Structure formats: structure tokens, C-alpha cells
């Protein structure tokens, strides 16, 4: 078990990390969109929309991700017959995993955005309303531009958490980094080199992401 193990397996490790990146990026985009919609629902003037948004967030935020993903694989896939691809099993599992990861993460995105809305000073919103802007106009022109800047840093943490959470996709059966590491460990036993390869992979993904978001947050901060 020299450094050879890492070099031997370098190719498969890289491939598995490509799976991790694809999951993180795709789920990231979907959860941002979904999170924005749910956040708008939760601050909207219509009580029914607020209630629906609250229910969504409460359920998803309090269920373990493992269970959410199992529901996607078994509930959506096997029982409700939701399929994204009939021919390509890997594609099917990928999109079922994306549904689970996006729904779960969007609940956290929604809460971050809502916290961002709270940072917008009351006076500005009152001013916007007093010049006759509607809810949608107030949200689009006054609240969201400021709220989005305020939540860049929390969104960065969510992106990092999401990247790490892609490992839980293990239960759906899609090949990403954690499954590849388990396969390698099961094959030739644990090796420090192989683990170090995976650890490094995650650090390469998460630490720069944190730095970029931190920088963006500071540059775009609304000075008050």
C-alpha cells in the first residue's frame, strides 16, 4: 500500500468527483430557484401561500437527508413511477437524487433569503409602498436586490454543505465520491493514500468555494 494505490486509482477517483461536482452544481441551481420561489411564498400577502411555504420548509428541514433521498429513490422512483430516463439507469438515479438534494437544500436557501429580507431597513420598504409600488414591485426593485447581497455569505455555506451532502446520494446508488471510496476500501482495505485523495478532493471543492463567496459577500455588501 504505497502511494501507488492513489496513483492507480487516480482515474476512477477523478471520475467519481466529476459525479460529485455535477450533483452539486445541478442541485445548487435548482435549489436556488426553488428556494427563491418558496421564500417569496413565505413573505407574500396571501396567507395560503405563506402556509404552504411554511409547511414545505418545516417538513424538509426536519427530515434527515438520508430519508429524503430514500423517498426519492423508493417513493418517487419505484412507487410513483417517476422516471427521468428509461434506458440509462445512472441518469435516472442522478435526476432522482437531484430532486431530493434540491428540495432539501431549497428549504435552507429559503430560510437564508428570508433572513436576508429582514436585513432590509423597514423605512425603505415603507417608502417604496408609500410611492405606490405593489408587493411584486417592492420585492423586485427594493427588497430582493438588497436581500440577495446580504445572503451571499450564508448561501456560500449552503453551497459548501450541499457539496458535502452529495455523499449521502450513496443511498440512491449513483456513483459519486463516497461510493467510490467505499468501493475502493472494500476492495483493497483502507489506505491512507486513498482517503487522503478523497479528503483533498473535497477540500479542493469546498475551501475555494468558501473563499469566493466570502469575497463576493464583502465586495457586494450593502453599506449602511
Amino acid at each position, binding site marked *: 500500500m504505497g502511494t501507488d494505490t492513489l496513483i492507480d486509482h487516480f482515474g476512477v477517483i477523478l471520475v467519481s468527483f466529476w459525479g460529485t461536482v455535477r450533483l452539486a452544481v445541478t442541485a445548487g441551481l435548482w435549489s436556488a430557484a426553488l428556494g427563491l420561489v418558496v421564500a417569496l411564498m413565505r413573505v407574500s400577502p396571501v396567507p395560503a401561500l405563506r402556509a404552504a411555504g411554511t409547511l414545505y420548509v418545516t417538513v424538509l428541514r426536519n427530515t434527515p437527508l438520508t430519508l429524503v433521498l430514500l423517498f426519492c*429513490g*423508493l417513493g418517487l*422512483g*419505484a*412507487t410513483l*413511477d417517476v*422516471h427521468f430516463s428509461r434506458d440509462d*439507469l445512472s441518469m435516472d*438515479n442522478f435526476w432522482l437524487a437531484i430532486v431530493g438534494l434540491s428540495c432539501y437544500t431549497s428549504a435552507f436557501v429559503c430560510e437564508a433569503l428570508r433572513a436576508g429580507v429582514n436585513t432590509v431597513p423597514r423605512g425603505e420598504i415603507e417608502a417604496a409602498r408609500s410611492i405606490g409600488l405593489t408587493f411584486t414591485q417592492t420585492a423586485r426593485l427594493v427588497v430582493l436586490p438588497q436581500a440577495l447581497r446580504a445572503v451571499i455569505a450564508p448561501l456560500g455555506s449552503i453551497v459548501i454543505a450541499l457539496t458535502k451532502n452529495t455523499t449521502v446520494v450513496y*443511498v440512491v*446508488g449513483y456513483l459519486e465520491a463516497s461510493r467510490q471510496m*467505499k468501493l475502493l476500501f*472494500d476492495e483493497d482495505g483502507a489506505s491512507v493514500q486513498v482517503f487522503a485523495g478523497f479528503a483533498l478532493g473535497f477540500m479542493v471543492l469546498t475551501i475555494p468555494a468558501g473563499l469566493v463567496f466570502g469575497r463576493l459577500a464583502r465586495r457586494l455588501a450593502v453599506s449602511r
Partner: protein
Amino acid sequence: MRTSSGPRMATSAILLATGLVACGGQTSGSIVDKAASEKKLVIGIKYDQPGLGVKKPDGTVEGLDVDIAKYVAKELGVAEKDITWVETRSANREPFIQQGQVDLVFASYSITVDRKKKVTFGGPYYVAHQDILVRAGDTSITGVEDLAGKTLCSVSGSVSAKRITDEQHVKAKVQEVGGWAECVTRLLGGQVDAVSSDDTVLAGFAAQQPGTMRIVGKNFSDERYGVGMRLDDKKGCEAVDRAIQKMFATGAAQEMMRLRFGAANFKFDAKQPRPEGCG
């Protein structure tokens, strides 16, 4: 937060962690001696394989593995009520034996060359065969080669799917999941086309929901179920073999198989398999 400072807390955390590690004591000597002196045994079985080993809501366990374990324990002088049942999954059977967390393992435990390096096997008490489970209405799969292009469900850590794709060179798509019940749910839901495992395991699931699933009946491997115990426990192995010999000679074994497999319409092999030997 008032009484301890950082370094001391770190030490206590490490102590606690090592304390956790130290759980699960080491015992030595033959299980025959343990059974004779303590009149107690810890036996590892599966908890999720209907027909072989399953944990019932009332806390009891049942299945062929359980019946045979009870018989062998009785022959070793341990009454049913003095058996402590422990769940052993496919992945943790060897570690549990090596660490002394269980004395004997009856858990659809196939005797293999690799495993014999780590544990000693008594028996075998049954020879199962790998087979294929499909939906009752599905007539498109009648043998291994029909699995080409179909989706096959398998449990992580099991070799069943690898046998088909690697040894039989059939290009099936493999869906890996965490447990057999998941596989059966996916099969009935139509998300996979077949489940492959030992015929005994498949029969147990088929018997649970009669009429919904069919075993193809093309067995293509011999899985000799042995009784796992600590490596080099020759005395224990011989005692277990004697008990199994007696179980088949008196017809008790055949009776247990009829009870557990009869409902599944499963044609079981009631002959005693050739003993592995304890040498």
C-alpha cells in the same frame, strides 16, 4: 463550563472515546467450554430475511437459521431462553466473530476460501443456490442470459450481482441499494426487473406476498451455509458438526425446512450436505 479547562476536557473526551472503543470484550477458549460452564450463548443471525432469520415485533426471532441455531445450542447444552440473539449483517459477520461479540453465527453465511482465513465454519447445514426473482407476470426472463439489458437489483456488499455481470458476463444494469426489502419494493414497483440472491432469501420474500413474484429456478452457484465461529475453535467446530449430523439423522432438519420453506412452494434440498471438516 466552570470546573474544567480546555486541556482537561480534551483528555476526558479522548478517554471517553477510547472507553467506547474498548466495549465488546474479548473471550478466548472454545465455545463448547463456554456453553458448558455458563449455559449461555450469543448467536448472530439476520434480522431482515424472511424464512431464514427475521425479528418479529414481539422481540422473538424466527426462520430456518434460527431453528437450526436453537437445535445446535440445545445439543451444546444451552436452552432456548439462554440464547442472546444479535443481528449480524453481511458486512459485519467476520468482525463480530473476531471481536467476540458473538459466539456463533447462523446468518445465511456461505463458506468461502476468503472467509475461512478469518473464521472457522461448522457445517454446512444447507446448500443454497443463487437464483433470480422476477415479477409474477414477467415471462421475458427465464434464465441468466435474459438479464442482458435488464435492470438487476442487488444489496451493497453482496456478490450476487457481480457473479452475473463479471462471472457470467451478462450485461445487466445493476441498481445497488441498502437492503433486500428495498430491492423487493423496487421490483414490485417496476423500477428494477430482477433481484438476484440465494434462492432461500428470494423464497422468503416471495412467500410474504404470494402470487406477486416468481423465482426463475435457474440456480447457478452453490452457497454452502456454515456456522461461523472463532478461528481455530476445532472443538467447537466438531461439536457443531455432530449436532448437525444428528439433526439430519433424526429428521429434525427436514421438518424445519418443511416449516420454513413449504409456504413458498420452494423445492428445497433436504439431504445433509457433505461436511466441510474441521481440520
